Structures are given as C-alpha cells and as structure tokens.
C-alpha cells in the first residue's frame, strides 16, 4: 500500500480540438503541501478541477487515496477531499455561520440535523480561520479577505484529508495572503492535511509549500522542492521574463522578482 493521497495517471483533457491538459502524471503523498504554478492558460485550474472530479478527463485516471475517483460516491468523495474555488459569488444573503455549517453537507442525510460532532467541527473551523466574530453577518456583505477566510472555514468544516485550492489569495492584500497560508500551513503540520494549491504568487508558494509543480502548456515541466523551481533560470525560461532572485535572509526560502521583458 503506497502512501499516496492523489495519483494522476496520464490525464488528458480538451475543449474540442484545443487540448488543455496534455498528458499529466503526478503523485502527491499524504501530508504534502504542494503548490501548482505556471503561466496563465497552462491548465492549472483545470487540473485542480480534475482532482476534485468536477472535470472529467478525456483520457487517464484520477485516484484519491489509491481509489479511482469515479468509483467513489459523490458524498464519500466530499468527505475525503474539499476545495476552495477561485472566486465565490454569493447571490443570496446566507449568514456566515449558516454557510460554514453547510460544509457539513456530505455528512448529513435527508432528515438528519446537525449533531454535537458537526457543531464542534464547525466551531473549530471558524476558530482556526478567525471567523467566529463574523458568524451573524451576511456572506453577501463580506470584504475580500473576510470572504476568503469564510470559504476556507467551510472547506475545513468538511473535515477532509485533502484540500484543493485555486488561487486562494489572488485578490487579497499581503496581510491576508500570509494569514491564509499560515492557516493552511498549520492545518498541514498539525492535522496532516494534504494540500494542493494553485498559485500565481511564486514567492508565497516557495515560502509555504514543500514542493512546487510547474505547469506549462498543459504539461509538467518541473517538479521539486521550491529552490529547484523558484530560481532565476527556471522562471526566466518558462515565464518569458527577466528575473532576479536569491535566498531570503530570515526564512531561507528562495524568491524571484521580475525585472523586465525577456531579452533574447
């Protein structure tokens, strides 16, 4: 029995003739915190949606904890893996507490109501994301930072072993960016939560992730610890920009900064 949380086997997917994912194989071990990076249109979001089963591959297979995803029932799968979408739009004024509780959906039958366990898990999730004080507010009136923490709380309330995120911090200021990643890191270290997060922020990814996967044009071009990916040579080659980079003084995490358009 291998200790793999996610296994992707030669995934391919396209809309009509335009192929977006061109043969991706990848294994994510239990307890890993993996960042998926890559230029716009490289297929990152589609890949994450395939891991959740929302997008069906045209070819290949997704396994969660060594079981084929399409053979796991939907409710069971939702007890195994949760996801935070790229952007959440609320059309109706649910209360924050109500919304987070709805993360318990896969555990509740038709007539069941919330029990002690549900209540405890929801409360823990709201504590961890510092959203308890927002409980009575309407989700439609939250700021960007509040909204993202609330959505994360509802995903944590699902109490899963795996968490998939699609650019969880792209619209947040640096304070909230750090806050979200700190929460994720804590969950990863303390509870062994396996995380795969798409991110555009190379430096945030290199600071928090154990491993980065670089996706270009629907293929994995590099995969390894942050210092093997977030370095001027690799980033220059795949993102087509001139970059400077180095090692951060305190955290020792690598960083890169774009300095201009790529010179030939």
């Amino acid at each position, binding site marked *: 029995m291998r200790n793999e949380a996610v296994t992707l086997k030669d995934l391919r997917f396209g809309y009509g003739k335009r192929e977006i994912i061109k043969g991706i194989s990848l294994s994510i071990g239990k307890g890993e915190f993996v960042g998926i990076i890559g230029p716009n249109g490289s297929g990152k979001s589609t890949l994450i949606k395939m891991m959740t089963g929302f997008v069906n591959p045209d070819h290949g297979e997704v396994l969660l904890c060594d079981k084929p995803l399409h053979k796991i029932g939907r*409710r069971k799968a939702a007890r195994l893996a949760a996801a935070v979408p790229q952007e959440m*739009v609320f*059309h109706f004024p649910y209360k924050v507490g*109500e919304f987070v509780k709805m993360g318990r*959906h896969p555990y*509740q039958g*038709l007539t069941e*109501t919330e029990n002690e366990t549900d209540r405890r898990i929801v409360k823990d999730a709201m504590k961890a994301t510092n959203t308890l004080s927002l*409980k009575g507010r309407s989700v439609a009136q939250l700021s960007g930072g509040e909204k993202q923490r609330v959505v994360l709380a509802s995903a944590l309330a699902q109490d899963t072993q795996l968490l998939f995120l699609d650019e969880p911090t792209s619209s947040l200021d640096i304070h909230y960016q750090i806050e979200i990643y700190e929460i994720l890191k804590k969950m990863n270290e303390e509870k062994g939560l396996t995380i795969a997060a798409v991110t555009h922020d190379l430096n945030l990814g290199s600071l928090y992730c154990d491993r980065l996967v670089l996706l270009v044009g629907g293929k994995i071009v590099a995969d390894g610890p942050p210092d093997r990916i977030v370095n001027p040579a690799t980033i220059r080659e795949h993102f087509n920009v001139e970059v400077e980079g180095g090692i951060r003084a305190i955290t020792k995490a690598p960083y890169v900064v774009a300095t201009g358009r790529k010179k030939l």
Partner: protein
Amino acid sequence: MRRAERNYEMTTEWTKHDWFKVAPFALFFLLTLIFCPAIGSVSISLKEAFSQIGDVSKSLDASVLFRTRLPRILLASLTGAALAVAGAVFQALLRNPLADPFTLGVSSGGAMGAVIAIKLGLDISLLGFSTVPLFSFLGAAGAVALVYILAHSRGRLPTAILLLAGVSISFFFSAMILFAHYLADFTESHQMLRWLMGGLDIIGYKTIIKILPFWVLGVVLLFIKARDLDQLSFGSYVAWCRGVDVARSQKICYLAASLITASVVSLSGPIGFVGLIVPHSVRFLIGPSHRALLPASMFAGAGFLILCDTVARTVLAPTEIPVGVLTAMVGGPFFVALLFREKKKYAFEE
C-alpha cells in the same frame, strides 16, 4: 472573541428554527383560507351554508360556498403555492434573484398550447382533462423538454446556457402565440386574451384533483432537494465539492419545478409575479435557507393568491378583474422597488 463564541453557542438546531420560521406563513395561509370564502359579491352566511353541507343544491349559501368559492380558493392555493415554490427554485438554480417560474418559457409553452387549442376549436379530452388545459400542459412540457435538450451539456445544466435557451424558446413561442392570435376571429381572440390574462374562474373540483398528483410529486421532490438547492446557489463547482451530485440534482429540480408550474398554468393561465414577489419577500423575512424558504413560500404563495383573488372578484363586483392582471399591478411596482434597492449594488460592478 469570548462574546463571539457565546453567540455561537446560542444557535440551536436547524430544524427547530425551520419550524419557527415556517409557522407564521402557515398561519397566514390558514387565516386566508378561513376568512376569504366568506367574502364575495354575494354575501352568504357560513352557518347557513354549513348546515346544508349534506345537500348543497338546497341552499343558495351552500351552493355559492361549496360550488363556486371553495374550488376557486383551492385552485388559488395550489397555483399560488406552486408558483412561489417554483420561483424560489428557479432563483437558486439560475443563481439569479430576478428569475421566476416563467423565465425559462414554461408559461409561453403553456400559452401556445392553449391558444392553439382555442384556435383549432378542438374537443379532445385525455385522462379527463378538457382540451385547453390538456394542450396547455403539453405545450408547457414541450417547452421544458426543448430547453432541457438545448441546455444540457455533459449531463449538467450550465446556468448561462439554461437562461439563454429558455429565453430563446420563450420568444419563439410568444411569436407563435401572436401568429395564432392574428389568425383568430373575434370570439377566439377574446378567449385567448382572457386565458393569457390568467384567472381562477374554473369551476369544479374534478379538474383540480387531476393536477394534484403532478403538484404533489413536484413539491415533494423539491422539498427533498432543498439542501442541494442551497449548495447549488453557490455554484455547481462548490456544490459538487460538497458532495452534491450536480447533474442529478439540477435535473430533478428543473423538471420538478417545471412540472408544478405547468400543471397549475394549464388551469389558471400565466399568473405573473407571484413567483417573483413571494419568494423574495419570504427570503427577506426568514433568510435564504431553502429548507425553510420552500415550505414558507408555499404557504405565503397560497395565501397571497387567495387574497389577490378575493380582491379581484369583489372590488369591482359584479365585474371581476382577471387575477393575473391584479398580481401584475401589485407586482410591477414591487419589482421596480426591488430593482431600485439592488441598483446601487450593480452600479459599480463590471
């Protein structure tokens, strides 16, 4: 922090809440059910009417109450309830607070069926349905099927496509209605117009009982899917990740909401705005959670339409205002007020 935690503890279970939320609307419905039959252009004595319950034809009071008003109130309840529930469902399904049961062409399909039946002067009945309701029901079902076939993609019903398909089909049927109307003679034309205005003046329990199985089936299915509707209103990706079988739930909700709409439209015509106003008001009062919203809308819709119909048949007595015209006159300003309130929110988007 401390206070926040205490607040949290104060929330009790959902179900308890749900009953408390629904109860006032049930009470409202009961009140209309008790008081409205007594009101009308002919004043009757309820005591007298009930004393003759054994043989209704013996007394005028009993005859008015049991043969005219009660069936009408029954139809108003079923129609108002169905339209309000379907409205709430379509709003969640289309993730659009301004959607209603007619947005996706169910009513134009029904209207086309009815108009064709009137124009052709057909006299066919099936399973006890008379011609116009039968054709109306078939027309509505046709529209639902067409929209479904056009919109579904990889098993799911994407919101944007569903909306586009529904509106296109709706326009097409409206054009057909105009065409049939153009070909109609004076009597037919009046009949068509009267049908399109919506009314509850169908006499007799028999017809009403025939739509009851469809109505009950649809409403029960939707109540079962209430929790899924909450999740679907957050988008199909979120719903999927939280364990909802999106394709299945969308299908069931779309078909069930269409079914109850089609069944009541076939008898009472397209009565507008109930499906918009009622779910909106109820959501405003008790919040958007569908487990409370659907039953509360059901009661509120039934009570609201009974009230409207009572006004429609008494205010200009002995002339009746078609109830569809009345709901539209109430609903129009309501809709404008709603837009006005939401306007600011949209001004700085895009």
